[in-house]
């Protein structure tokens, strides 16, 4: 058994639990130093994740943010499996932001691929320490011991001890090298692959105060913050005296904010923006919110004050007529192909709107600044990054900032941006009291990091045999020079790159004064719609069945990958396409007039998804999605089948909602303000959704995001087959379509 370097700089400590038991407790002096370095550098320590009480109850730490993906269970399930305990004996606690847990990054469907190995290793290392403790107690070799259901057994002498009995001794055993611990064979899994219900479900269903918005701190005041409605605007003056005179109002003041690092900054890791506005702090949220109704602010809106979505669309059209500014990828010679007269050429412009996240729980953050220390309660998808940035803003060392990462009422990427932490911390420091900042829904819709809009001018060609031989995409997006707006660019090796010999993606950009960011399946949630719709157009032009046309494309020998380039594994995609075709009865069912099926696939976030939608469109262009079939390959294991199914279903419903959503700008400000103008699917519109997983011999990966992208094109492709009309502008309401 090897000791890690970390272990030599650490000391073990047995800590009494409130219930009188003992827990594995290892505290590291290195914590401070580690906090200053990249989180990845710290080897994980089992006792940071596992504590075992004398009664055998095993408390596991959930390191990632729970925003509805059930990762609160997923990661502890991995630990529990290798620790070899029964799930019924497991309790889960939430981790504060702390680099000892490794990266607490919640995004990119990365929890499973990032933690599949390390969390199992943590569990296996804990098990090894418990075995070592038992072996030492009995004076036998550890190799003679086995474990099951929270007990160590020595079969030869028919002795056994429970983990609870061994915990305090196990805490004194050397910590094994995590990379060297032996992991279970998957055939022996008892927890991985079973459906476990989120450990907070009962609290959710009985209305316990577990969300960020429910946080209560003694002496807490409530804040609203009127941010500048235009990016970069400044509050010049306001009727603060009148506001302060209102009932319940304790403070009202202008927040100067600070300029963004650049117009197209990375809001995730560089600077979420600390914007100017007016804060009102009162003894109740309603008093603060009511006072805001009387607030009169004189703004200086600066350079973005005249921005307008209609003008932006005109600029995009103009740019599409010009030579693209940049070439993102070029294979073969598209131009020569397009000059041939023995081919069919299709030209289609696609319009992608900005859309908002609209998490059900409006953004909020509670902050308590006192005597140079800061305590924060927030649901953040990247709490460690938030702590760093708030430390920079208030000039506080990270060790003096505690971030309690509470349950979030939805995230979808919005809570990856830590702007509320900055605002709440600033307000708390200014007023010298704990403050809960709650945004109204209007604040939430109008101050988001929006899914970036854009325009794609597509041109493609099929030859006489119906083969796709040329693909051209002029992507007109937002940005400046070589910089795209944050998460508003284009992935140049997106399929069908490499599978079409003559392929090019070019781009042009125009300025944007609006924060943009990651929305569930960033990039993919818009590009899959364009690409899979356009492939469908080409399939119809070729006179081919849309499934067969896609399979033909995927069986084309691809161009080799460039150095460090990643690409999809065509065989895995073919697998899910065939599966979804089979399950949906593709091309085998007679459908009535006005009813049709559409297919689409997309590879993103390491996941392979193919989806079929069956829709009925009536004469008034009202769409009923009758049914959706999802086929997925996310590797060898579905860690929690119930969660996996519901994540995929939710992604489909989320994707359908995106077909009716749009954020637009007038005079630099967002027009839409609440759910009535940025709607989402309602229950009567939600179709049955069948989800099928194709298990393949690949490491398990995530699915919250990759399940979403194919649904939009699948539905649009079905609408085309049903009506002959192709949806090329989202939201589809622009073309007169809506959900029945």
């Amino acid at each position, binding site marked *: 058994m090897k000791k890690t370097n970390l272990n030599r700089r650490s000391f073990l400590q047995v800590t009494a639990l409130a219930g009188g038991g003992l827990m594995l407790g290892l505290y590291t002096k290195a914590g401070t130093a580690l906090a200053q370095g990249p989180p990845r550098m710290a080897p994980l320590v089992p006792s940071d994740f596992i504590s075992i009480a004398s009664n055998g109850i095993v408390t596991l730490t959930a390191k990632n943010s729970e925003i*509805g993906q059930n990762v609160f269970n997923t990661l502890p399930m991995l630990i529990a499996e290798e620790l070899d305990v029964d799930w019924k004996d497991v309790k889960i606690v939430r981790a504060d932001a702390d680099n000892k847990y490794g990266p607490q990054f919640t995004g990119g469907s990365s929890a499973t691929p990032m933690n599949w190995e390390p969390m199992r290793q943590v569990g296996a290392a804990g098990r090894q320490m418990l075995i070592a403790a038992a072996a030492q107690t009995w004076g036998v070799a550890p190799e003679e011991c086995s474990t099951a259901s929270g007990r160590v057994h020595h079969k030869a002498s028919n002795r056994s001890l429970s983990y609870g009995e061994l915990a305090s001794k196990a805490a004194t055993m050397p910590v094994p090298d995590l990379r060297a611990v032996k992991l279970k064979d998957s055939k022996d899994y008892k927890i991985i692959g079973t459906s476990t219900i989120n450990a907070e479900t009962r609290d959710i269903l*009985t*209305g316990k105060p577990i*969300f960020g*918005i429910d946080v209560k701190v003694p002496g807490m005041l409530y804040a609203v913050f009127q941010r500048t409605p235009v990016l970069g605007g400044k509050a010049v003056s306001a009727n603060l005296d009148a506001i302060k005179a209102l009932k319940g109002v304790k403070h009202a003041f202008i927040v100067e904010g600070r300029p963004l690092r650049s117009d197209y900054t990375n809001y995730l890791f560089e600077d979420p923006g600390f914007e100017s506005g007016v804060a009102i702090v009162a003894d*109740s949220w309603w008093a603060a919110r009511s006072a805001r109704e009387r607030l009169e602010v004189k703004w200086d809106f600066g350079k973005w004050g005249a921005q307008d979505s209609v003008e932006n669309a005109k600029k995009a059209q103009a740019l599409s007529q010009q030579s693209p500014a940049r070439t993102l990828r070029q294979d073969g010679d598209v131009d020569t192909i397009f000059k041939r007269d023995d081919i069919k050429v299709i030209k289609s412009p696609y319009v992608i709107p900005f859309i908002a996240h*609209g*998490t*059900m729980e409006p953004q909020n953050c509670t902050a308590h600044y006192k005597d140079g220390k800061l305590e924060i309660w927030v649901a953040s998808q990247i709490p460690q990054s938030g702590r760093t940035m708030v430390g920079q803003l208030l000039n506080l060392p990270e060790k003096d900032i505690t971030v309690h990462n509470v349950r979030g009422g939805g995230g979808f990427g919005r809570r990856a941006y830590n702007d509320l932490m900055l605002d709440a911390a600033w307000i708390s420091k200014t007023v010298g009291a704990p403050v809960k900042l709650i945004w109204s829904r209007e604040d939430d819709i109008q101050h988001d990091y929006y899914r970036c809009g854009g325009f794609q001018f597509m041109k493609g060609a099929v030859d006489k045999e119906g083969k796709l031989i040329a693909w051209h995409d002029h992507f007109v997006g937002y940005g400046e020079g070589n910089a795209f707006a944050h998460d508003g660019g284009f992935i140049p090796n997106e399929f069908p790159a490499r599978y079409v010999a003559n392929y090019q993606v070019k781009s042009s950009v125009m300025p944007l004064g609006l924060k943009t960011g990651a929305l569930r399946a960033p990039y993919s949630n818009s590009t899959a719609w364009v690409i899979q719709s356009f492939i469908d157009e080409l399939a119809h032009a070729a006179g081919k069945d849309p499934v067969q046309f896609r399979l033909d494309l995927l069986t084309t020998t691809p161009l080799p990958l460039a150095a460090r380039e990643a690409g999809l594994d065509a065989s895995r995609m073919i697998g899910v396409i065939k599966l979804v075709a089979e399950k949906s009865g593709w091309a085998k069912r007679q459908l009535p007039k006005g009813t049709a099926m559409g297919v689409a696939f997309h590879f993103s976030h390491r996941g392979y998804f193919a989806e079929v939608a069956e829709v009925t469109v009536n004469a008034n262009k009202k769409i009923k999605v009758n049914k959706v079939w999802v086929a997925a390959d996310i590797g060898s294991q579905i860690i929690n089948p119930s969660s996996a199914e*519901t994540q995929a279903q939710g992604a489909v419903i989320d994707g359908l909602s995106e077909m009716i959503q749009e954020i637009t700008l007038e005079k630099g400000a967002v027009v839409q303000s609440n759910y009535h103008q940025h709607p989402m699917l309602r229950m009567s519109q939600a179709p049955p959704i069948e989800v099928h997983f194709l298990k393949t011999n690949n490491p398990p990966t995530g699915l919250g995001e990759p399940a979403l992208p194919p649904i939009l094109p699948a539905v649009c492709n079905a609408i085309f087959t049903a009506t002959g009309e192709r949806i090329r502008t989202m939201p589809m309401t622009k073309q007169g379509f809506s959900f029945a």
Partner: protein
Amino acid sequence: MINLKVNGKNQQFDGDPEMPLLWVLRDELDLKGTKFGCGMGVCGACTVHVNGQPTRACFTPVSAVANKSVTTIEGISPDGWHPVQAAWQELDVAQCGYCQAGQIMSACALLVKTPKPTDAEIDTAMNGNLCRCGTYLRIRAAIHKAAEMTPAKTANTSANKPANKSANNATRAGAPLLPSKK
């Protein structure tokens, strides 16, 4: 001074009569189960029962519920575990969970009026409750499940009655809902 009954308990409120019931519940009475979603009654996260009727607390001024009986998620059963909640758990409905209190309140109101609802009746009753995670399919299934668990004849609100000693019986037998007004 506004008098109201919340989960069977008399309460008095002497603040701003325009304050929505939602904020009285959450911040004055510390009943955090009722959620703020939109502030304009379009998402249903704040659904409570007022005299048995599903009501959006976010835009109902507290003055409008004077001398009325309000039931929140915290008060829908005597033992804290209603058949609808049990069905929700069994079918693993919740994802983020934020809208689910409102969903459950709407579902409970539906089941009082319509003990064995069809899909269409469920859709109609639940269409005012948004779920951003898209748990609609399981909500629909859970309502059917709860309908199986709940005897057709539902009892009066638990909040006004002494709690049943037997947790299991209480959960299964007496659906503790406010009766519909009619």
